[in-house]
């Protein structure tokens, strides 16, 4: 156990170092930790608690100072504004915002049922439950993954395992599409790669690609590894050009595999990530950077968020060094219980600002950070 003074010293060192390594840095402490970080607009995110019983869903508006471009120096506001808040009856393991609406859909990780919420508008700051969507399973170990259809009428794709995946229309509750497959593999990710085509990543590493317009069987790409106890997480890049769409799969042992969406089984590139505690992780998040080509971010193995440049990866798996590491959560968390060290529960990239991310950890901390690319350091920062 660290002495208070020693802890303060290490923290101070990291902050001094951060003067050079970050352009902007904001550190917040929520009352309760969140496992979800979801954009509800260009400048607001949703977070929610995951304790056994009652929890809060909060919509937070990013600090004005971070977003200000002109007159940034004259803006002193550094705080999150809790613009809306509500209460849930159970944990929130997955939260998805329906684009173009003030609606969000959640899953509690205990069954595959979904809860539907109204995030509130100008007249009230209360987030209210407006309904629910029945899933296939009343009891589920991991709960459902949710993906919102990018455009057109509010519809959600959801399911706890690959054979359960269905597309539900929110207003009517009608099932518009069902994925036809017999496999019962549990899902670790679900996302749309176009308005109708989606990718479902299973925990065993296999990936399915299907189109909600057809009932044709999905394309299946098998897991990169046949190791039994290894869990995989997936993310697909939403590039503007179809040819730039790539998929990355990361395993609990730190293996990372990148492939082309149209040729998932083909040769891509791989790496062995430099993760501290491979194997000991449950909430790994891997994400393509929205505007930085070839960059991916990984969290969940420890209290660190890592950013890698996949362009440096080759066909054979080699040890990769991260381009940047955000160690803020690990450094600033004073652990009283050493058996459960702080780990990052989730992170997201800002959709437009190239190097801005938000990350949340198991100790309730939420950081907003704009990192400096170490390869571009040296020039004086633009005022």
């Amino acid at each position, binding site marked *: 156990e660290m002495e208070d003074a020693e802890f303060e010293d290490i923290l101070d060192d990291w902050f001094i170092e951060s003067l050079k390594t970050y352009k902007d840095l904001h550190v*917040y402490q929520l009352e309760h930790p969140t496992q979800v970080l979801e954009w509800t607009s260009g400048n607001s995110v949703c977070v929610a608690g995951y304790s056994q019983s009652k929890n809060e869903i909060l919509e937070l508006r990013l600090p004005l100072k971070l977003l200000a471009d002109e007159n940034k120096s004259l803006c002193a506001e550094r705080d999150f504004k809790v613009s809306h808040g509500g209460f849930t009856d159970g944990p929130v393991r997955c939260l998805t915002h329906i684009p173009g609406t003030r609606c969000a859909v959640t899953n509690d990780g205990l069954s595959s049922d979904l809860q539907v919420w109204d995030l509130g508008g100008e007249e009230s700051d209360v987030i209210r439950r407006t309904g629910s969507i029945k899933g296939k399973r009343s009891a589920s170990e991991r709960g459902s993954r949710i993906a919102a259809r990018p455009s057109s009428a509010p519809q959600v794709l959801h399911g706890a395992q690959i054979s359960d995946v269905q597309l539900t229309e929110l207003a009517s509750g009608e099932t518009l599409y069902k994925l036809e497959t017999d496999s019962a593999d549990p899902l670790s990710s679900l996302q749309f790669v176009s308005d109708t085509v989606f990718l479902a990543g299973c925990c065993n590493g296999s990936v399915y690609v299907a189109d909600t317009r057809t009932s044709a069987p999905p394309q299946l790409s098998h897991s990169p590894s046949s190791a039994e106890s290894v869990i995989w997480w997936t993310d697909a890049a939403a590039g503007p050009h179809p040819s730039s769409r790539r998929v990355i799969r990361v395993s609990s042992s730190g293996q990372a595999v990148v492939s082309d969406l149209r040729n998932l089984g083909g040769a891509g590139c791989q790496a062995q990530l430099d993760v501290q505690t491979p194997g000991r992780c449950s909430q790994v998040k891997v994400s393509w950077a929205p505007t930085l080509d070839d960059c991916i971010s990984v969290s969940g193995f420890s209290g660190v968020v890592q950013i890698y440049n996949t362009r440096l990866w080759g066909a054979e798996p080699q040890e990769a060094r991260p381009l940047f590491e955000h160690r803020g959560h690990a450094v600033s968390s004073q652990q009283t219980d050493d058996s459960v060290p702080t780990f990052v529960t989730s992170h997201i990239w800002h959709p437009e600002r190239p190097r801005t991310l938000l990350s949340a950890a198991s100790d309730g901390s939420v950081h907003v950070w704009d990192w400096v690319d170490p390869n571009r350091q040296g020039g004086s920062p633009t005022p």
Partner: protein
Amino acid sequence: MPEIKVTPLGAGQDVGRSCILVSIGGKNIMLDCGMHMGYNDDRRFPDFSYITQNGRLTDFLDCLIISHFHLDHCGALPYMSEMVGYDGPIYMTHPTKAICPILLEDFRKITVDKKGETNFFTSQMIKDCMKKVIPLNLHQTVQVDDELEIKAYYAGHVLGAAMVHIKVGSESVVYTGDYNMTPDRHLGAAWIDKCRPDILISESTYATTIRDSKRCRERDFLKKVHESIERGGKVLIPVFALGRAQELCILLETFWERMNLKAPIYFSTGLTEKANHYYKLFITWTNQKIRKTFVQRNMFEFKHIKAFDRSYADNPGPMVIMPGYCVQGTIGHKILNGQRKLEMEGRATLDVKLQVEYMSFSAHADAKGIMQLIRMAEPRNMLLVHGEAVKMEFLKGKIEQEFSIDCYMPANGETTTVTTNPSVPVDISLNLLKREMALGGPLPDPKKPRTMHGTLIMKENSLKLVSSEQALKELGLNEHQLRFTCHVQLQDPHSDADTLHRIYTHLKSVLKGYTIQHLPDGTVIVESIVIKVSSSAEDSNTKVLLLSWSYQDEDLGSFLSSLLKKGLPSGIC
């Protein structure tokens, strides 16, 4: 029903000033008397017409309490005291009393001398008003009068800031002023005991925010300073000496060597000597670390920080950092609002060529802080002022859910009435207490009240409960006894003695738990009720029962007479 009334003075949604009226137990208290810095006319003062349409406020207020020296909490004090008129007691902590007049005078100078306003308070008014001030120490109960008492608690925020506990009888209110729940480099965090006030009044300006950490604000400050130095520039910090200045100096001093910087830092202030004196005086108001480090030294003796000399003004490339609030009307305020051209008195316009950074270090409680304070004080009701009700529904729900207390959010000018449930303390005489204890049975339990007999005597201001005998003795009265008798006729062929015995058996089976005795002198006694049997003169089968009971056993006596009127059950022997 007893009630406490709270009214934040002011109109509309403005949050620029604090002035709250509380009516409790027949007393009227004003909490803070702030100036609204956004207005240039009478709207900057609180609207005292709510209290009285014209005339002085002395008769309407029992006291005025000022929480800290920020102008939005004390700026209207000389106006209220000397121009509207108030001669009653004004309470504030020692540091507040010392520092308030400095800020008020500063503000007056700018408003009157520089901006040329009239109808503003004068220097003499400030002095006269401060003469009415009674200083408070932390955690010390002060009797304002026979019934009203107040106590100050540490609030953090700025030097001398206090939260105040106000008590009349068994009703109480706590007002927080501005406070923070996390310590900073020179002040501690707010603290209060589990005083369980009827109402906890808190500002809610930051209630719906989640504050960025102190370290990040400091990091930003250090970053800008560092960048400026690296470019070869100098750093100038004009800041009120008794506010955030201390914090920043400590911060720079702590990190200067760590950041490997050697350039000098200049500290501009006209108050260094006075400030030193005040800090030494109020050292107990700073936090532990400060006290340990600065016991011997001057508060402004730093390795790397020096006083500014006007001759440095022409050096190129400086950066100005202004933490916190610049009073309206000053050049600083204009620059912070982005003005790049300044019209100087008698001179041509000046171009602002410096790089300007506005940073806020003020320590306020956010949503989490408010919840922490509620947990500490355990109020019966919560009241939030200076927030927009529509934007705080969630917080209200959160407070109501977590603590099961009501949360009120009055708009400015609106009165909230909270019904209280005050307890009335009564002394009990030792004899009575001993007698109750001697009765045995389970120990007193607040959930299971037990009836006891006594007499409540209200004499002067005290209430006491004594035994009836003692009361009669004290009052010099004779005790009278009241006994009821009634006759009940029964048809029974047995002898008088047998009938009596049958009655005894019957009662024993019906009145379980009561003391029933069959005495050899021919009576049956139930508690204190006496039953005798005699035969009617005309018919020996008609028995006449004589029942006699005292007033205290009225209920049982009535019950017995009804019971016996029904006759005896045949199976009894």
